[in-house]
């Protein structure tokens, strides 16, 4: 993938306008995601949760950079690797951690788990487990925004493996044909489970270029630099807001852990060297930290304060989750039907559930 660093992304208007405090906030959000997930990992290993746990560690700059651009009518939807986006849109650690623990206080009342975080009040539409399944939904968010006459967008995140689900291309054609303000963001971390990009996809210069076949603007960017993420996503967002046109962006990034915590082979299908290289040279948090120190808006001491606070917050969220009640048995059949939950006339008419 080509990496044009011709322009200095830090001085792009969207970044140039950032106050020192804003910059530190961006860093802080990245750190919070990392500390949250590290705490989650520890709890998972301690047997506190079930199912899958897909960690976002290494990719934090993408969620934080993109979501920091969101205005009132900009929406987000993603796949199952969804903790980072959840925190980046403003969900709190407690509701997220409690969800992982399957507790009633979880954001989805313990019904969704790791892959299914939602916060519609924060324009965050999940958290979807079927690879590629979120791409038509993202189209629908964009359609809804446009239908309502709002100046907004829908950012739909997906992995490099997800590009091989057909509904993505159906969505691209419709987005282009109907001029919908959707931004597909491919978080290319080089692997879909144990399969490297080269073993799953053929493409001209990059995956995003497939958008050209549908008359859609596309670009690639280096995800390790949160300034670059913001600068280039901003271009797409303005295209969405002002021209109601879609964009496909491919952001190169890297996950440090396995596909999920259960992925025992992740140091076999890729080398430890490769992982180390990313951690040493491309870590988005370390890079941005250095950058901010260089820019003199941050000191090592301030960094430690932020980091400690994030650790503390994560630890607190674990305690919160542990102390929270598990959902009641009756809750199993709640949240299935709106009408039943509200006991409207419709919900009280006819039988909706069929045990016994």
């Amino acid at each position, binding site marked *: 993938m080509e990496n044009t660093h011709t322009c200095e992304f830090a001085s792009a208007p969207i970044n140039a306008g950032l106050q020192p405090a804003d910059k530190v906030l961006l860093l802080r959000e990245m750190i919070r995601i990392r500390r949250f997930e590290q705490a989650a990992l520890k709890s998972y290993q301690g047997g506190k949760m079930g199912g899958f746990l897909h960690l976002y560690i290494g990719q934090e700059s993408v969620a934080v950079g993109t979501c920091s651009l969101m205005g009132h009518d900009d929406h987000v939807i993603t796949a199952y690797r969804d903790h980072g986006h959840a925190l980046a849109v403003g969900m709190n650690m407690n509701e997220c951690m409690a969800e992982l623990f399957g507790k009633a206080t979880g954001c989805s009342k313990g019904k969704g788990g790791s892959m299914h975080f*939602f916060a519609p009040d924060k324009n965050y539409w*999940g958290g979807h487990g079927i690879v590629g399944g979120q*791409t*038509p939904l993202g189209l*629908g968010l964009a359609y809804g925004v446009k239908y309502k006459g709002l100046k907004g967008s829908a950012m739909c995140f997906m992995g490099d493996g997800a590009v091989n689900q057909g*509904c993505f291309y159906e*969505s691209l054609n419709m987005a282009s044909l109907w001029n919908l303000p959707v931004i597909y963001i491919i978080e290319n971390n080089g692997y879909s489970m144990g399969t490297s990009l080269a073993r799953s996809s053929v493409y001209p210069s990059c995956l995003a270029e497939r958008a050209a076949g549908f008359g859609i603007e596309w670009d690639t960017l280096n995800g390790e630099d949160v300034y670059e993420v913001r600068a280039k996503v901003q271009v797409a967002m303005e295209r969405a807001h002002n021209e109601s046109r879609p964009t496909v962006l491919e952001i190169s990034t890297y996950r440090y852990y396995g596909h999920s915590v259960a992925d025992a082979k992740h140091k076999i299908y890729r080398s430890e060297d490769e992982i180390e290289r990313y951690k040493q040279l491309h870590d988005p948090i370390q890079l941005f930290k250095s950058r901010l120190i260089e820019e003199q808006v941050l000191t090592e001491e301030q960094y430690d304060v932020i980091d400690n606070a994030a650790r503390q917050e994560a630890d607190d969220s674990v305690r919160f989750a542990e102390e929270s009640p598990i959902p009641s048995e009756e809750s199993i059949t709640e949240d299935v039907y709106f*009408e039943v939950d509200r006991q409207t006339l419709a919900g009280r008419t*006819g039988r909706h559930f069929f045990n016994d």
Partner: protein
Amino acid sequence: MPEITYREALRHAMAEEIERDQNVVLLGEEVAEYDGAYKVTEGLWKRFGDKRVADTPISEAAFIGMGIGASMLGLRPVMELMFWSFSTVAWDQIVNNAGMVRYMSGGLINCPIVIRGPANGGTNVGATHSHTPENWIANVPGLKVVCPATAYDAKGLLKSAIRDNDPVMFMENTLLYGEKWEVPDEEYLIPLGVADVKREGTDVSLIAHGRAALTALKAAELLAAEHDISAEVLDLRSIRPLDEDAILKTVRKTHRVVLIEENKPFCGVDAQIAAMIQEKCFDDLDAPVLRLSAIDAPAIYSPELEKRQLPRPIDIVAKVLSICR
């Protein structure tokens, strides 16, 4: 009361709801400029314009998913599948998105969407175009399924479906589009979950849904005329929610039941109904609950044979005679 076609009844329901609620939008293949492959939406695009009625590409996964996404934001899309058979290419969207997002979000997100279109055999369009997936859909907690048999029911149920805050899968029948029934001019709604006794009777209950309910009515006439058997015909109308009380009531009245559906038998809707009846009315039954379904093979093309493949009045009569003598 004026008589209108099933097709017109559906169209009127949509027109009224488009006028009533600015969040209602009709989307699907050929629904706008072409007036609908089966002309159900005829004139609506002309009348309501591009914003409210729009043609989609042949991309069911994308456009059904799009409708679901839009419904999460509060729109009330009424999506036409040219055939319900094409739901196979949007199956993930229907089951996993419409069916589960409310649950997985702990009730934070609703999908007030309607997906509608014909789901029937009997028109010689071959196996891939003749699916009747009401049993598949009704297996999914989170989804609702409606199968109207008459113009009157179609209109009242579709209006309720559009106003319902849960995803409703609305299954019509191309063989009925041109049939006429009395439908009042005044607005009315038919709630989901209320079955309809389409004919009263005392000797045997014929329970059916969709076009099979009409076949049952014909059979009831034959039974009365030729065999002096008084058959009650219960039309389920909605499969989920299901009017179990109405089923139990008719069974307790007649003590004999024949279930009729146009679906394939294995795990059809009538398997569920039969299982339920034998459990709840064990001592009320004077005979086993019998079932009549389509002949258990993919839909055959050959026109004469496809007629034979679906339940006919005489097949129902034979079943009834086997338990009423």
